């Protein structure tokens, strides 16, 4: 079956992932979010195999009428803060519930970047993306499983903002036109002053700078590659169950960014990180008593 790309189609992906007709936009628990704010950020609740989940996605067709650099799925100031509000609304909705009952958050990832404008810098785009990431980590700390599903573009700062703080990250395979990178290889070639052929040859043995799902898989940057979009529902549900199981076993740290660090060593793409951590810990162990 030929893969139908979902790039730029966040809303279509929501329909493919959630139980039919269950998506309620801008409503999470008792919170109703401002529909006019950050129109390109699509947030709300729905059901996945009957379980209530929060969904956070982007609609690449909508422009922000107030911030001209925000279009095509770019996450600007309003969008990032709205996404953060959706996370806090999810936390508030399940306040007092035991960790195993905290609703999962499903991040549908398709964004080319954060708002690259002067007004954004004057007011602090760094705060907006930072605020959303801190909210996601807090949700994880409280027991909410966070699973990201890359359906299109997971690019640099946008991927850090919306995706990389998840417990688990899944991606559609490259046949779906998914893009995961900091910069395309052509830009890296220009900056590192190497020709693109050399970089392509190097990337066969070293996944550390090349663009694409397969390289991020080797680095432990994504947990799983999904070959058929029809399987997204099953895969997301399965990972949610696994995250609950890890959390209740006191193994929360094995998910999320640091868990993916360990995965990168296991898959052989990011071995040095693990070595450095071990070496520095040994070094500190020799002097730790002085500080106790």
């Amino acid at each position, binding site marked *: 079956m030929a893969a139908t790309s979902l790039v730029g189609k966040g809303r279509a992906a929501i329909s493919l992932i959630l139980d039919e007709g269950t998506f309620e936009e801008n409503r999470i628990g008792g919170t109703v979010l401002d529909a006019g704010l950050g129109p390109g950020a699509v947030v709300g609740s729905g059901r996945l195999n009957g379980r209530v989940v929060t969904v956070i996605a982007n609609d690449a067709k909508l422009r922000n009428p*107030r*911030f001209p650099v925000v279009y095509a799925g770019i996450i600007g100031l309003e969008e990032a*803060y709205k996404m*953060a*509000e959706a996370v*806090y609304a999810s936390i*508030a909705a399940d306040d007092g519930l035991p960790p195993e009952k905290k609703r999962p958050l499903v991040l549908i990832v398709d964004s080319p970047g*954060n*708002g*690259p*404008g*002067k*007004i*954004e*810098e*004057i*007011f*602090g*785009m*760094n*705060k907006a*993306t*930072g*605020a959303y*990431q*801190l*909210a996601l*980590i807090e949700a994880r700390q409280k027991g909410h499983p966070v699973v990201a599903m890359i359906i299109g573009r997971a690019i*640099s700062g946008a*991927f*850090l903002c919306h995706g*990389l*703080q998840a417990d688990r990250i899944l991606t559609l395979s490259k046949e779906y036109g998914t893009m995961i*990178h*900091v910069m395309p290889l052509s830009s*890296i070639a220009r*900056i*590192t002053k190497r020709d693109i052929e050399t970089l392509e040859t*190097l990337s066969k043995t070293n*996944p*550390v*700078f090349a663009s694409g799902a397969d*390289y991020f898989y080797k*680095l*432990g*940057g994504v947990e799983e590659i999904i070959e058929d979009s029809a399987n997204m529902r099953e895969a997301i549900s399965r990972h949610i169950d696994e995250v609950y199981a890890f959390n209740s076993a006191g193994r929360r740290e094995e998910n999320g*960014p*640091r868990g993916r*660090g360990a995965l990168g060593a296991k898959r052989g793409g*990011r071995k*040095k*990180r693990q070595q*450095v*951590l071990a*070496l*520095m*810990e040994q*070094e500190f162990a020799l*002097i730790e008593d002085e500080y*106790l």
Partner: protein
Amino acid sequence: MKAWEELISSSFYEATARQRAHGLVDAGTFNELGGPNKRLKSPHLPELGEAVSFDDGVVTGVGRIGARPVFVISQEGRFIGGAVGEVGGAKTTAIFQMALRLHDKIAKKYPEDASLRAPAIIYSFETGGVRLHEANAGLLAHAEQMELIQECRGKVPVISLIGSKVGCFGGMGFVSISTDVVVMSELGRIGLTGPEVIEQEMGKKEFDSSDRALIYRTTGGKHKTIMRDCSFLVDDTIGAFRDQVKTLLNMPYEQLKKYRSIGSLKLVQEQLSLVALAAVLQPKDSTDVWAHFGNDNPEGIPDMELEEFCRKAKLRHREVE
């Protein structure tokens, strides 16, 4: 290396990462961990024909300020613009994890007065973010640091220091603003999308990256103080940054919390009211925002001495106390 007394009166802007690390903590107390003798160098740079550094561009270690252990992360802008790769990222992760573990041990051993004995982390930024030669690993390292900053909250105070030559841009722009407190000098610069990138993406009309004064008005220490992203603006000496850190570490953690600009729903809502202001004001320049906050001579602000600025400048009103 200069004598410690000489270090603390040296310019923070000009100082190397190692000078900052030694000068920020008490004299003679800095123990470098993962130092150059350990040869923790990038395995990726030689593949691209680039030189390596034996510390991979970040100095990490532990010292003391008074009774407290203080972990230090200090980035070196002279090595590939202080950009973060796999090894430097791992060194930084290691420091956060050590500080957290030491905190838990101290809290167990001294349940009565753990907060005054608990370790702190000071993070001296000089970086443009991800190192493109090993971009994917650098990106993943940023995510680890964000997670660890959130894990430190309520346990290990994390203080950002920004006043070095390269500034603090790219992903490190949000890593630094996510800590408990941001301290800057007037020469410090912080942002997400660097001036060159804005110009490249949106054109010279949006941002002329050769205009130094514009860069300072948009990302510099004075502007970020008026916006309350920076809580303390200090002189450009290692000693001035150190004194500010000392003052902060003498405060109970509860008091440090009030310097956060993000990290709760209330703070997000406060920022959203600022975003609403941005939409209405549509400023052409930061000076429009300074005027809006009640500064009647915004054009004069860049030339003010620190003392005059601290006395006269009108800052954004804070909604969350």
